[in-house]
């Protein structure tokens, strides 16, 4: 058999930042489209608004730093941040919250540390956490998925709600919105209900909330595409999902009615989106392969701990930010041995 022998470097084409970012955006699209399908036009409006805000903020900060604007705006990293933020926040989030979140992400979390490649924290998740801590009510008012939504909003109505806060006639916020499946599961577990009892609700599908599990599948597809294109390596997503799954199954095995089953954790909330698109952020994650395994497994652990015993509705953002902080330390202790130096003799 004939092997092709090529000397290093083995990159087959210049892997520019904008190409990578575009690939990630492309991989995000199926999941995002599924979210628009299940949760309405609000997601699309949020995406456009967040992207526009992100571009304006990048331009402002480049202007302040006296750098050329176009190359930085053109690398799509700000737009990716905006899109990740937009699919993480509720569909009918008031416009000024999106603007505050993105401005915080781009100006403070990203550009103040020196721009792309220097930010210690994932900008989209930092913005999400800022808003979740500051405006818990707005940030937890989700829409029901399309098959359960009796009053789907048109594009115009969604825009009216987002930009002016006026609801279509005869509707109230309480009638329109609901908690996310993950949120309602843990809220009801806190009220000493049993898992099987909670799952009787029509909100639930096979694994997670109806609609949500399918969104998760589409994100999974995008994530596999990214691994196939070698934009991300398998280490972080696999170790994160595996540690979350193992922990969840272990606790479920110990007490089936107090801890939801393993796949529940995978297919509710932002687990898949987080595992493939957020935890793998090349800037704020670990660099070494061994470190990435530790990093991903720790995120899975933190997600389980914060979801099960914490007070906030989802844990992926908090877990990623916590491990962002630990990433340099993990990298320090998992440096691969340089060939010919040191070693275990």
């Amino acid at each position, binding site marked *: 058999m004939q092997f092709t022998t090529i000397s290093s470097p083995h990159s087959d084409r210049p892997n520019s930042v904008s190409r990578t970012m575009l690939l990630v955006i492309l991989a995000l699209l199926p999941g995002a489209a599924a979210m628009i399908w299940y949760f309405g036009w609000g997601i699309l409006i949020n995406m456009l608004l967040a992207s526009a805000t992100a571009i304006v903020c990048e331009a402002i900060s480049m202007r302040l730093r006296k750098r050329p604007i176009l190359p930085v705006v053109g690398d799509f990293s700000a737009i990716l941040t905006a899109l990740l933020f937009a699919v993480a926040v509720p569909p009918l989030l008031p416009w000024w919250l999106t603007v*505050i979140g993105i401005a915080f992400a781009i100006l*403070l979390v990203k550009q*103040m540390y020196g721009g792309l490649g220097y930010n210690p924290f994932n900008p989209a998740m930092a913005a999400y956490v*800022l808003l979740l*801590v*500051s*405006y*818990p009510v707005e940030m937890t008012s989700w829409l029901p998925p399309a098959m359960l939504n009796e009053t789907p909003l048109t594009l115009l109505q969604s825009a009216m709600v987002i930009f002016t806060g006026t609801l279509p006639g005869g509707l109230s916020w309480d009638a329109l919105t609901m908690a996310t499946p993950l949120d309602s599961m843990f809220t009801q577990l806190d009220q000493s209900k049993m898992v099987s009892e909670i799952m009787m609700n029509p909100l639930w599908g096979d694994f997670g909330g109806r609609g949500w599990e399918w969104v998760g599948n589409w994100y999974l597809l995008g994530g596999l595409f990214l691994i196939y294109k070698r934009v991300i390596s398998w280490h972080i997503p696999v170790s994160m999902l595996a540690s979350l799954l193992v922990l969840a199954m272990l606790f479920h095995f110990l007490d089936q009615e107090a801890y939801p089953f393993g796949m529940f954790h995978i297919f509710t909330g932002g687990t898949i989106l987080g595992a493939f698109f957020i935890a793998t952020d090349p800037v704020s994650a670990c660099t070494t392969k061994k470190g990435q395994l530790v990093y991903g497994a720790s995120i899975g652990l933190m997600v389980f701990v914060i979801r099960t015993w914490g007070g906030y509705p989802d844990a992926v953002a908090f877990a990623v930010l916590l491990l962002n902080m630990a990433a340099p330390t993990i990298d320090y202790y998992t440096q691969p041995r340089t060939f010919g130096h040191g070693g275990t003799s």
Partner: protein
Amino acid sequence: MSTTSYGKLIKEGLWSNNQALVALLGLCPLLAVTNTAINGLGLGIATTAVLVMSNATVSLIRNLVRPEVRLPVFVIVIASFVTAVELSMNAWFFDLYKVLGIFIPLIVTNCAIIGRAEAFASKSHLFPAIVDGLAMGLGFTCALVALGSMRELLGLGTLFSQADLMFGPIASDWTISLGDNFKGMLLAILPPGAFLGLGLMIALKNIIDSRLPKKKPAPATTSEGDLEAGTA
């Protein structure tokens, strides 16, 4: 020390060597109590009072204290004044005292105070030491009030709420509100808001510093350089 100019002392205390923004001392009370402007003002004034009195006392006893034991002596002096201030606030500003709580006794551990005692008061005469204490204290107070106002405005949408805790019932309507529809950013009141706010204030000060001297001291430094060159 006879050449000490009071203008320079005041400028250092309020701006160029501001204990909160430049020396980054006393961060514990700075970050912990500045969730409203009035809390910041209360703690700032208490700190200033302690700073003035401790600086004066340290300056007076500076020739009596042996260098080996100076730090314990300074701490005892500061702790005495803090106790006095705490008891006074307990007596006259009881509501504010309750709000500030543990942070009044904690003024003892405020590094800004022992820092000024060690770095300045123990080496200078009484009056410069008092002026230094006052300037440093006021600079610290200004930083506290600025940070407190910022966090209160962002987080609660008000300014100078609960001013009556400090100025009596006459101040109960001093509160400036941004309106009931303002939805406060809770994070600004929480501890991360203090860190972010302080960071932004330091950044702002650095921006001002880097923009200001472009006009004035540029000729001044060159003339100094000329003088030095001439004398050399």
